[in-house]
């Protein structure tokens, strides 16, 4: 009943008082009493973040010898990594994550990645989003296949939303998904004639004999009104949350808005770029540090803003591959293999632990003699979230051709 009450408080009354109650919303309200839908928020770090400087294996001598100018110092140093378990530490600019770790709301899977060895951004992102590494012809993304496996009558147009100008590969497929750059811009834009033209288009689509276009058009206009009532311009984050002022921070803030508006959100997508640090990467400070600052403050603000609702929400982060163990000649890092992923929130997440087998960084332990080896297939992480958090027991259609090994246990 929690969800229903919030809906009534935040938007429903206002809508009803305007004499407007979209059909899908009515369904949501009815359903709210019965099912509290779980939400998954994915964050893609496009460009291959350096996982070794993000979650630092400060207990490895090799880490320091391979990275003379860009290693993050040990926790004993004032600028050093934030100790997690005596072996791994967070980059100091990930400090906003530390309270989440301490509260066991944040889990890490290290040395995770793709069984495919490509070092092309394009191929690796494609494989990660289709979740069929090595198979290029897969047309749909894994998040869309999840939506399909979970098809239900109460789906709303806001079921799957990417806060991006383009629908990402992971959300493409049979099930409808929205790409919205700015939720305040979602609607008909015709200056002074907006209301009149919107009403005209709406009546055209409402009367269309064309069932497919008629239904979709109807939902589009319902959605427009819904958002207008939620009044995105006036949104105030709660609990003192402060989102970073970046496109990525904006995206997360708008995801929080959609969650709170109870418009039926189940999967959200945001992305952060700027990770391709071939030159002058920096260490505790510098380029990568700046990006990690934005990254972690965004997620920490989201978690704070959403408060108790986080019990039903998991934030999952990913990046197409990691970076080489050794720094290059430009004080940067080149394309590598294994990486680290974060899992945050969710009632059942068993945080405060780094999961996955650590392969070591000695030359003979590396992939191709140069990169962090992958000991956990990224699909294992996805699958565990889909099963443990989203509650889909059979993940075969979501991860075709993948046999899930024993679960890592980051979700109870």
């Amino acid at each position, binding site marked *: 009943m929690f969800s229903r009450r919030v809906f009534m408080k935040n938007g429903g009354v206002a809508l009803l008082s305007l004499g407007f109650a979209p059909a899908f919303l009515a369904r949501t309200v009815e359903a709210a009493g019965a099912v509290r839908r779980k939400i998954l928020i994915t964050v893609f770090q496009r*460009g291959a973040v350096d996982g070794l400087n993000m979650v630092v294996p400060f207990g490895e001598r090799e880490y320091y010898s391979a990275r003379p100018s860009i290693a993050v110092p040990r926790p004993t140093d004032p600028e050093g990594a934030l100790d997690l378990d005596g072996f791994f530490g967070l980059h100091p600019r990930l400090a906003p994550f530390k309270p989440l770790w301490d509260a066991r709301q944040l889990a890490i899977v290290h040395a995770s990645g793709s069984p495919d*060895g*490509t*070092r*092309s951004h*394009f191929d690796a992102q*494609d494989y990660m989003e*289709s979740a069929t590494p090595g198979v*290029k*012809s897969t*047309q749909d993304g894994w998040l869309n296949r999840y939506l399909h496996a979970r098809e239900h009558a109460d789906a709303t*147009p806001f079921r799957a939303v990417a806060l991006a100008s383009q*629908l990402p*590969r992971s959300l493409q497929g049979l099930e*409808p*998904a929205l*790409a*919205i750059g700015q939720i305040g811009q*979602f*609607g*008909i*834009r*015709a200056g002074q*004639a907006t209301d009149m*033209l919107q009403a*005209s*288009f709406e009546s*055209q*689509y409402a*009367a*269309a*004999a064309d069932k*497919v*276009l*008629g239904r*979709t058009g109807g*939902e589009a206009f319902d959605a*427009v009104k819904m958002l207008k009532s939620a009044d995105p311009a006036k949104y105030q984050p709660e609990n003192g949350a402060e989102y*970073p002022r*970046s496109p990525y921070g904006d995206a997360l803030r708008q995801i929080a808005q959609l969650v709170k508006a109870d418009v039926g959100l189940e999967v959200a997508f945001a992305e952060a*770029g*700027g990770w391709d640090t*071939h*030159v*002058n990467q*920096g260490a*505790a*400070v*510098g*380029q*990568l*540090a*700046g990006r990690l*600052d934005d990254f972690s403050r965004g997620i920490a603000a989201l978690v704070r803003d959403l408060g108790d609702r986080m019990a039903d929400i998991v934030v999952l982060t990913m990046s197409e591959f990691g970076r080489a163990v050794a720094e*290059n000649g*430009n004080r*940067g890092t*080149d*394309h590598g293999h294994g990486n680290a992923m974060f899992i945050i929130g969710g009632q059942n997440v068993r945080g405060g632990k780094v999961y996955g087998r650590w392969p070591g960084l000695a030359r003979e332990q590396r992939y191709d003699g*140069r990169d962090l080896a992958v000991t956990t297939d990224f699909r294992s992480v996805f699958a565990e979230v889909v099963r443990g958090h989203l509650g889909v027991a059979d993940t075969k259609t979501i991860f075709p051709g993948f046999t899930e090994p024993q679960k890592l246990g980051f979700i109870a």
Partner: protein
Amino acid sequence: MKALARIGLVALLAASTVAATPSTSPVPSNPDDKTILHVLNRIGFGARPGDVERVRQIGLSAYIEQQLHPERIRDEQMAARLAGFETLNKSSRDIAQNYYLPAQQARQRAQLAKKNAPPAAAGSGQPDAAQQPRTPEEMQFARKMREPLMELSEQKIIRAAYSERQLEEVMTDFWFNHFNVFAGKGQTREYLTEYEREAIRAHVLGKFRDLLEATAKSPAMLFYLDNWQSVDPNGPHPANGEMFGGRVFGTPGRNGRIGARFPMPIPQRNPNQNPNAKQAKRGLNENYGRELMELHTLGVDGGYTQEDVVDVARAFTGWTMNQPRQGGSFRFEPRFHDPREKVVLGRRIKAGGGESDGEQVLDILAAHPSTARFISTKLARRFVSDTPPPALVERAAQRFRETKGDIREVVKTIITSPEFFAADAYRAKVKTPFEFIVSSIRATGTDVTDATPLVQSVRQLGMPLYMCQPPTGYADRADAWVNTGALLNRMNFALQLVGGRMRGIEPGTATVGAVLANDISPATAETIAKATDPKQVAALTLGSPEFQRR
């Protein structure tokens, strides 16, 4: 412009006397507006004001026949519209050396200058090198680097909107999408202009086998599906092939063991990769072999096995290119070619065939009945409906087999069939974003002198040109394009277009009669009647549910 159209009309009328239609043809001899509009929507990108009347005068059957022979259609105004573009006829080498390389060199110079610069301050949120402010020199070259792809995208829109050879444009769009390559994958974009011009456009109504080989040997495809770096793991072999006398299976390589790594320089790997990165291990790459069968020829259920994928990939080892970073061309490199025997779909390809191995594979695939069916299904889906009638697909596939893959004949079978003119094919297709935008330009008689805003619009509607990532190409089914966000974007595009707010675009206006043959719902008619000016009429027409279909 009018005069030119009239000249074209005379030429068309002259041709129509040649192509007399037998009375048994399913092509109506006395078609109504809806039927003519249907044809214009399917074998072209929709009607311009006056087109329906023009086609009626020419005769529907003659018009179709004319479109099947684009070389017979005069299209002078196209040359004038494309005159301002400088890269469309350039070679890949020219484009690589004069547009891409200078930008790379400028970037390298700038990076070298930054190399010793101190790292940025903590928490500054400073983005990485790629996003840092660029030097004026870098900016200038970066702008120039974007020209070839932008010009290519603009010409695609301009040709589709204004060419008299409408079917040729439809087919160019269809085949490019069928043999899709992605401009975002490394150097692929440097080869795109030549790829579309010479591998695709030159063969769109020709023989399928020629089209297939042109794409197989195109640097764009070699690059995009990685075949250029697919090599025999047992190589390298002597260049003159003297060792290949049938005893090669299991023959030790030059350094004395089978499966040895290459001791010699091989083509540079992924250009996305930093040049400082060490070379990774190398060997057979199955990407092209797999997609060639799954997407280009047989179809996913076409009856091939994983063993076939491997042997096809082996046959294509050594199909690589010269100087991949400098606009080089196709080259067969015997040192990287697997010389042993291959078996593809039960057919033996003898050892030592060299470059001809790949050609034999193309022969086998092009002649395979699964290919005839797969290609016919996709063409029927493009021209008739998302779920094309099986009987039509079967007749088209039969024509494919009879004519050894003559595309013109297969297309003709489809667009002159009873199924094509059947009532349930009418408005059965939802337009793709590209089709929607181009048909909007045509319907409104809009004059486009700068198509760059339209390139942006197609992207905003979710179909960025030359930027479809997977090798499947864009979907040709309604469900891929109908969703709430996309529909609103289409209505907003209609408003934007007729509002005259786009640079270089002089909008005309649409009348319902011309654009939709007056075939609209009472609700649509009512909203249009209530519009207060011609721009609103046009916007409400282009944004209507009726106009989203073709």
